[in-house]
């Protein structure tokens, strides 16, 4: 059964969602809705957060101990599940960020001659 039908340009580059979630949480605890909004707004809507991927990603991150969750109430007093970054998550974020920058630079080096 096909699970994703989002257009290619909105597709999240593989493996980056985790990193973006962690980055979002650097600013402080947030619930799923806020996280999705923050990523979309931060990318000026270039990146669309697919909820079908967000919740599994949150679950995975929590399971690995990079984020922790607690139930709280939202801005307009709705019960919501909040996530915060754990020290392990913070470390993981810097590891992933470094790695990402390396990859981007490498891809850039390959693409540049072609565009020149």
């Amino acid at each position, binding site marked *: *059964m096909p*699970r994703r039908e989002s257009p290619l340009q909105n597709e999240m580059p593989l493996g980056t969602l985790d990193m973006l979630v962690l980055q979002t949480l650097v600013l402080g605890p947030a*619930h*799923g*809705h806020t996280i999705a909004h923050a990523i979309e707004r931060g990318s000026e809507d270039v990146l669309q957060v*697919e*909820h*079908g991927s967000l*919740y*599994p990603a949150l*679950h*995975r991150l929590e*399971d690995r101990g990079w984020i922790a969750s607690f139930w709280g109430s*939202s801005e*307009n007093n*709705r*019960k*919501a*599940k909040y996530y915060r970054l754990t020290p392990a998550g913070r470390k993981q974020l810097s590891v992933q960020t470094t790695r990402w920058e390396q990859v981007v630079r490498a891809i850039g080096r390959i693409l540049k001659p072609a565009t020149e």
Partner: protein
Amino acid sequence: MSIRRFWRRAQWDRDRSDEMESYLRIETDENVARGLPYDEARAAALRKLGNSTVIREEIYHMNTIALLDELVRDMRYSLRMLARSPIFTAAALLTLAIGIGANAAVFSVVNSVLVRPLRYPKAEQLVALHQDAPGAAGLANAADGLALSPSMYFTYAEQNRSFQALGVWTAGTANVTGLAEPEQVRTVEVSDGVLQALGVPPAAGRWLLAGDQIPEASAASGISGRSSTVMLSYGYWQRHFGGEQSVIGRNLMVDSLPRRIVGVMPQGFRIVKAEPDLILPLAFDRGRVILAGFGFNGIARLKPGVTIAQANADLARLLPVWMDTWSNGGNTNGRWYENWRIRPTIRPLKQQVIGNVGDVLWVVMATIALVMLIACANVTNLLLVRAEARQRELALRAALGAGVARIVRSLLAESVMLGVMGGALGVVVAYAGLRLLVAIGPANLPRLNEISMDLRAFGFTLILSVVSGLFLGLIPAFKYAGPQISAALQSAGRTASVSRERHRARNVLVVAQVAIVMVLLVSAGLMIRTAQALRTVEPGFTGAEHLQTVRIAIPSSLIADPQLVTRTQNNLADKLSAIPGVASVGFASEAPMEAEPPDWDNVFPEGKIYPGDVAPLRRFENVSPGFLHTLGARLIAGREFTWTDVYDLRPAVMISEKLAREVWGTASAAVGKRLRQYPNTPWQEVIGVVQDVRQNGIQEMAPTIVYWPVLMGNLFVPTGALRVTRAVTFVIRSERAGTESFVNQVRQAVWSVNGSLPLASVRTMREIYEESLATTSFTLVMLGIAGAMAMMLGLVGIYGVISYTVSQRKREIGIRVALGAEPGALRWLFVRYGLALSGAGAAIGLGIAAGLTQLMKSVLFGISPVDPLTYTAVPLVLVAATVLASYLPARRAASVDPVETLRAE
């Protein structure tokens, strides 16, 4: 980690649902704030979230252990399938429960008796000081080998390098007076080192110590001196003193002498097999100890790291030291014992305790395992039939995309489920079975009261259940999981004639079943023949149920004078004869098969010369006038003792027929001949020869016996000292033997002579006789039960297969009937089929039985493991039963209505 996730995922799923619900609400709120009506706002939010079930599923799958997940599903499915055919399930479960239960019960016995360590700290270090002495003929026959003498104990204990502690002990009885009625209690006398070797701390007070072993005064006779301390068993302490701590330090009158209670041993404490009421110090009198006196059991605790072989070598080194250190008095030479070729053969204590009961238990275990195989074969057959009926369902599943592995797994899950459920029921059966086993188990089965189901037994049951479950499912699984979709779907519902191929698995199972049944029935048959053979043996006494026995001991502290002891015993016999309905009375050092520690010594018949003065050892019994007559032992030649012989100390002796034949050729030739114990003691004249008596139990050949009078001159002391048998068994012949009123009259008669004489071992000769048969009876009953179970299961198996065949071939039968087949011929068709199966099984079974029953040799008596009668009768019975089992379904075949069957198509 992953298991934790697996178990927590249901909760996580609820958490996620809540979380997504909260998302929806927040998103809806925002949309409402943007001015959308609620319904549209909610719909938009839902659209944005996407399919929440898919999200939940994705997370759910992240936490799945695929195998476990599917296993749970398979189990649920199999439970549903089993619940759908309750009759099949009940039949299978019942069969399995009985099979597994019986195995679990017997395993518990084997585990408790043979496998578990003895209940002593570091029990693996404990050994029994067993010794062989092939040169001491007669004595070497005794299963217990050569016991230790006190001097041997001193040498071994003081000079060994292998043991942490070493001691000797002997079981006996003593009379306790001054508490309530005089009571005869079981005692164990221990030397220093026995309690120390066993290492079980006392429940109260202290152990007997070295100081208690120093005799305070020399006793009137014997090698043990006067000692004055005693330890109680836990049971005796509870019974007589209510478990009071203050009992320590009090005095107890034991054999009319006061002894100070110094300690109490804890509950369940045993010395090897003995469970004494009192533990007394042996207190050997060093000044009187001689080389001889081989009547004590040696026990020791090995030093860590010392092997049994090293310990044997150590003791072998000490044997010459022993011979040179001690003497038998006069100018005897200790090196004479080199003739006996004594060889230490130390055994682990556990082996000593268990004895040869291992043989019996393993036979029973093997038998029960075979029953399990038959039970499995039956259930497999049921499963095969079921799988056949379910072919459509299986084919459908295959058509829907289930792989072979998937179907195999679900079939196996079902059979394992059956196995495990059967096992759970089996535990219940096992508990009941254990109670039965303990009830019918031979009283002399060692460690009977330690039998219980422990963790190991439960583990065994679980493994057995799972393995048999897998085993059950394998054949149907591999037979029916294969890709036969089109064939199955096409022929489904049609009763087409079944190919031979499809019957092969069931036929093989039935043949195997019959073969195993054959083996079990042959074993049971052999045991029945053994029991028969035993019944025909003349034990040397008659009318056992009319012989009342009672054991009475007169300690020297009560009556010192030997002559007076005999007069008292004579008086007792007279009083007992006066009881109404008593035909005759006699007494002796022991009744046959009573298993008292035997007496034996050399016997030199006149005119016979033995090399090195080593005459064969003979069993000694001291008998009163009239004892052998009361017993019913036939007098072959000569006459019995008279009271005049006894009181006049006439040099008279009686011997058993076997001894008479061995030495003088015939019984009558022996009368008037003479024999003596030592080359320099006076001759004794043989006045009578009596029928052989199976003194050691019905299975043991009758020993050669010398019957001495109960009072005789002491051969060691020529000055006229007398030797009397103080502990004797009275045998009373009466029709009323064994009744309570009779036993009461016996008690009154004894107390009318002396009020402080306790009566012990009040039984009939029949009970003693049955006890000596206990192991055989136990094996017989167990094999009988197993054989009956196997036979029943086997017949059900044959019946099932024939019935099924008949139902499968209904169409063919219908055609045959329509074409004019005779009912008789049709019946014969199916009976012949059953006969062919059971014939093949019986032939294979006979072959296996001939091999396996060789292992039963030690429990058989008087017949060969390939007893022709058993090997003819059992197959005949089995075949007859098969005919019956296949006749019933065959009759149904013959009554098939062709019109109906053919129309049903």
